[in-house]
């Protein structure tokens, strides 16, 4: 194929980019879409089961509001450093990114505490009724996301503190990790609304 006609030149293109220009951004969005579908179907199951019952929850108290509300506040507050980190990543500011990732790794710890108390204040064991099962399922589903994104953040934090951190692609990774945290925080707002407020309707 030596007679090939050459047009343009790819060698001058950048070797990384942010947002929808990056392939990993599409990967992250793909997984967010999958998990959103999972949450949506879990909500649908919740309301399907609710529609079958005269009283919801049947012979149980709704979950106590305090710990769940506290989790919601903490998750919403975590968005402040998260957005700051995302901007720092897109500005490729290594010092700020390192600080931001340490903050994001630590900020999850109090959320784990309030989440643990939430399970204790659902006022029902998971095997008591379908209401109990679906309520636990919603919380467990969200907790998986909390744990996996935390683990991901820890690894990224470690990586950004090594010599690999200064590469452009790693800043894109950081920006996409922050994007995923948006999903973790925002999906909780919906889970909170359903699990804590639907029984009070």
């Amino acid at each position: 194929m030596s007679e090939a006609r050459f047009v343009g030149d790819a060698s001058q293109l950048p070797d990384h980019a942010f947002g929808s220009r990056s392939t990993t951004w599409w990967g992250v969005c793909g997984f967010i879409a999958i998990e959103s579908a999972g949450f949506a179907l879990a909500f649908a199951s919740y309301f399907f089961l609710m529609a079958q019952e005269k009283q919801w929850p049947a012979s149980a108290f709704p979950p106590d509001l305090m710990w769940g509300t506290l989790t919601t506040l903490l998750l919403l507050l975590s968005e402040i450093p998260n957005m700051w980190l995302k901007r720092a990543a897109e500005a490729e500011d290594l010092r700020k990114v390192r600080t931001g990732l340490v903050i994001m790794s630590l900020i999850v710890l109090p959320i784990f505490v309030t989440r643990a108390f939430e399970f204790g204040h659902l006022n029902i064991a998971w095997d008591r009724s379908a209401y109990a099962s679906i309520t636990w399922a919603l919380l467990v589903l969200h907790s998986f996301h909390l744990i996996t994104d935390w683990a991901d953040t820890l690894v990224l934090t470690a990586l950004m503190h090594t010599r690999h951190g200064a590469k452009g692609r790693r800043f894109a990774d950081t920006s996409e990790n922050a994007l995923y945290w948006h999903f973790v925080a925002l999906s909780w707002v919906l889970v909170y609304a359903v699990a804590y407020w639907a029984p009070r309707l």
Partner: protein
Amino acid sequence: MSRVDGPDFTGDALHAALTETWSDAPGLWGWITTVDHKRVGRRYIATAFVFLALAGVLALIMRVQLARPESGLISADRYNQIFSMHGTTMMFLFAVPVMQAMAVYLIPLMMGTRQIAFPRLNAFSYWIYLFGGVFLWIAFVLNIGPEAGWFSYVPLAGPEYSPGKRTDVWAQMITFTEVAALAGAVELITTILKQRAAGMSLNRIPLFAWSILVTSFMVIFAMPAVMLASSFLIADRLVGTQFYNPAEGGDALLWQHLFWFFGHPEVYIIFIPAVGFVSQITETFSRREVFGYPVMVLSAVSIGLLAFGLWVHHMFATGLPRIGYSFFTAASMMIALPGGVQIFCWIATIWSGRPRWETPLLWVVSFIITFVMGGLTGVMVASVPLDLQLHDSYFVVAHFHYVLIGGAVFPLLGAVTYWFPKFTGRMMAEPLGKWNVLLSFIGFHLTFFPMHITGILGMPRRVYTYPAGMGWDTLNLVSTIGAFVFAASIVLFLFNVAISLRGGRAAGDNPWDAASLEWKTSSPPPPYNFDHIPVVESRTPLWDETRPVIPGLRTEVRELLVTTAIDAIPDVRDASPSPNGWPFIAAILLTIGFIGSIFTPWAVVWGALLMAPPLILWFWPHDPLEVKPEHSDE
């Protein structure tokens, strides 16, 4: 030291440099660590065909049992396992994976890129699929195979009526295959939207790529439903949750809604890629662009959307609100419209083209005839009164085998024949291929056409035997004879593959004179796919006068061209991960965790801990299992 391809770096020197960069390690280690989409795709396809053969053998056993009334060949319990395994294997281990497998091989080539997006995830996806399938079949051999059908309805599949681990094996196999399919969908969407050749705007991509794009989005929104449903089922069985237990506020119909919210789109997840095969084959052998390209794309998209509005037509017999009947009947009939439009477009393409009646096109013809018949019985059962009469009868068995085998397997066999030269560098044997089409067509219709009548005469599905004198005897015998003819045609196909692999005629780059980019490179393609990244100026780039390319990708590292999502304007040079052993190890550990979790819920915890180290090392730059560390990172 960085060197890029271009006018002064081309030909043999470029080939040597790119081969060095893109090839795998030799031997077994290379086999395990490869992330080459072509190697992964080939083994994905081969594995799916092994499962097809296994599930086909089960079908023959069932047909032997049903050949005569009151047959005592197999017991009711064994029969339950056999039909559950047949359906489960065909749907979860053959039909969906084989379509994705073909896409994993073909899409990066069609898009003119060097590698699929997220290739390590792709390798992981294959291993998880393989281990899930092997797990299911080992369980079956150990007499703990699924017993409640491929749909595993509760309460039959619940803790009360399905004690033991049989249903847990089924439910966990779901988790394996859905993880694999979901990962594959994300890779394919990203490859199609971001890694196209320069200039291949969305309105120029091959119709097969459109069908894979639509299918992959469907996978993303449909598969979570069955994962959620089967997780609820395992929880009900293992930790005493009450999702499906009516005594504690649960609902058996929740299962059916979740299952069919997945299960109906699933049918189109199998069918739409087949539509893509048909379009590519029709284009090549009619020697013209497919008639009505925009209409074909809109049809695929609207089938994809409508498929999510049909699931309740599987539940007409459960008792629904009247408005539900009307809505889902209307939606079920509506989906016949885009299906019909596509059929007419293919016919118009053949009609107005210069058709060459080679074997792949003959498979398309047998597809059109068979699928139209299956589509018509589909419109029949979309009508509630008729459905209530025919529900759970052999009529339904006939209907869905017409649409699944006619609609997907015939196009698949045509597609394998069509792309075989690209996969292997050799042509499949003729006229054996043409005789194969004829034998399949006769065998198929001989098997399944009588089932329409058996069903109308009242024979229910999923019965292990039936009394004499119901008027079903001869029809069943004919179906059994047909099943053996059909099986013989599949054996003939595999035989053709085997002899052609060794002694088939050498193919050359583009033996059919096709128009899409996969035919631009050699057969089989080199590890790097294309020496220079193509630039595309029409929908049929290889039929154009000139074949421009864009230079400038580095050759000593794995680098891809990333283009914009709509217009495919060159945008970024992206690194592509090198071969790596961690996806394989992660898949083994995940398998241990998944199997453990049907015995103890704590397996979720220790399974996650097991998975963490390989996942971290998979993503960490420069790890010990890296086959060829990227020198560029330094």
